[in-house]
């Protein structure tokens, strides 16, 4: 009897630990949403910043982030999908394959600030792109590449073997089989990975800090060799570098909320897309 009570207490302690984390996650989201909502307005989203960000809106930062993310995804998506197709459909176990896999897990673990240093050394200095959208996008694309490869490969592997065998038995070539039978079925899963990659690229600060982000630039970029403002960097600047950091707190909360909404929308989108197709496709 005594033992049973002890067990129950321990069980509730474990539950307490778990719900503590749940509560903190809930509180972070609540705090940002609650305090950010009062700043959120049409003018805030579509207006240009004034007085070094103390007033006005964050439109250039939103546009800058959109450019960076778009640039990152058009480079990383084809590369990632092609790598995944190779790994799932062509690769045999061997030295090259395990080297590729080691490279992918290594890339996934490289700290984001090191990606920033790398982008600085390679794109900004060696290629002479300077601090620009081009340098920033390419740096981000390398960073999200592992996410895209891993989720694309997973969805390719989920396509049953029988689909490939049937096609091959009818005389289709390997690529025809992949293109007509495997890819269409794996595409939703691959898109999910792409969306998750977009979410990550939109929120990263450290890599763009060294390769593209402008402190305060209240206009839109003219070319891919221009610097831009970006949402995460803008939040960092307002919160830590602004001379009147306390006074611009509403602007900080507003920016944080827009950023948070952006990544949560992307992640929810990815989850909904995945569930939708998981239900629809039944092998």
């Amino acid at each position, binding site marked *: 009897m005594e033992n049973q009570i002890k067990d129950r207490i321990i069980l509730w302690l474990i539950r307490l630990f*778990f719900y503590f984390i749940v509560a903190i996650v809930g509180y972070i989201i609540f705090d940002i949403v609650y305090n950010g909502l009062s700043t959120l307005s049409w003018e805030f989203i579509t207006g240009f910043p004034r007085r070094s960000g103390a007033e006005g809106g964050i439109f250039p930062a939103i546009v800058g982030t959109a450019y960076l993310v778009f640039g990152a995804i058009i480079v990383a998506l084809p590369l990632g999908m092609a790598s995944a197709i190779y790994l799932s459909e062509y690769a045999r176990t061997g030295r090259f394959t395990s080297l590729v896999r080691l490279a992918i897990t290594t890339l996934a673990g490289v700290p984001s600030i090191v990606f920033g240093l790398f982008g600085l050394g390679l794109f900004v200095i060696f290629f002479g792109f300077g601090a620009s959208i081009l340098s920033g996008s390419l740096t981000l694309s390398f960073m999200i590449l592992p996410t895209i490869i891993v989720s694309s490969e997973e969805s390719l592997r989920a396509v049953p073997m029988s689909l490939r065998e049937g096609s091959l038995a009818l005389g289709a070539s390997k690529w025809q089989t992949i293109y007509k039978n495997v890819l269409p079925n794996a595409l939703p899963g691959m898109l999910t990975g792409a969306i998750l990659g977009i979410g990550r690229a939109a929120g990263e600060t450290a890599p763009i800090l060294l390769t593209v982000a402008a402190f305060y630039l209240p206009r839109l970029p003219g070319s891919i060799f221009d610097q831009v403002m970006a949402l995460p960097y803008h939040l960092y600047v307002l919160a830590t570098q602004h001379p009147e950091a306390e006074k611009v707190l509403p602007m900080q909360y507003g920016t944080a909320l827009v950023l948070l909404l952006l990544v949560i929308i992307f992640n929810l989108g990815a989850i909904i897309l995945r569930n939708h197709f998981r239900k629809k496709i039944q092998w």
Partner: protein
Amino acid sequence: MKNWKEKIIRLLLVASASISILIVLSIFLFLGKEALPFAFDPGLSALWGTRWIPVSFKEELFGLLPLLTGSILVTVLATAIMIPFGVLGAVYIAEIARGPERDILKPFIEILTAIPSVVIGFFGLVVLSPIIKNIFHLNTGLTALSGAVLLALMAIPTVISISEDAIRSVPKSYKEASLALGAKRLQTIFSVIVPAALPGIIAAIMLGIGRVIGETMVVLMVTGNAAKITFNPMSSVRTMTATIAAEMGEVAFGSHHYRALFWVGIILLLITFGLNVIAQKVLKRYRTVE
């Protein structure tokens, strides 16, 4: 004709897959290229010092030890917080939580991995730091502890999800045998299931540590950025990542300071690379045993 097409496509796919290898190699190469001249002038021994004063009219000092101890202090604290929450969280989700509870709360906790680190850092700056300042009666809430709490929080979903996989992949027969022998549910969990899943849990913790060491924005915003050697959690510290982020923007290209920052990057890269490789080895061996 058809055969040609197949071959070209195959070649393109191989080339794409090789790009990951190429990127990893060029990361090492370009970090090395910018860092190397420092080894000749002023020499690597300059890095082995106790003071980091990179900008000075008298003598510039590039001792990395304060940055290293800063990173270590924050990481150790964060790991100490992350382990109980991560492991018990995984036990709860894998063995105790029931259907709907698990289906809702697990993805909810995973939202944490999606929240940008700058937002977590901002939350730390305006909400957590004042709390820590008040609880411990400090002059500033920007301490190693503040950073560690937030970093632990960011790593916990990773630890939970990988540990949970490890716990789930323990053969059901272990659990059944233990219960059949009359062991209680908790006894079974902590004497049979968790020990069997231990390698996977350790790998999960290592991957969590890798995330903590490499995190930049949170520590930059909430640890106070004082480059000094200390092991007091209530003190301000400056980590390696924060140093690069804070100083690279103002540094003169090609200067000693610039090159020293690249050395900091190399050290970070090597640490996270090592942790990753070991964690993957453990996970792999573990998966083949199943």
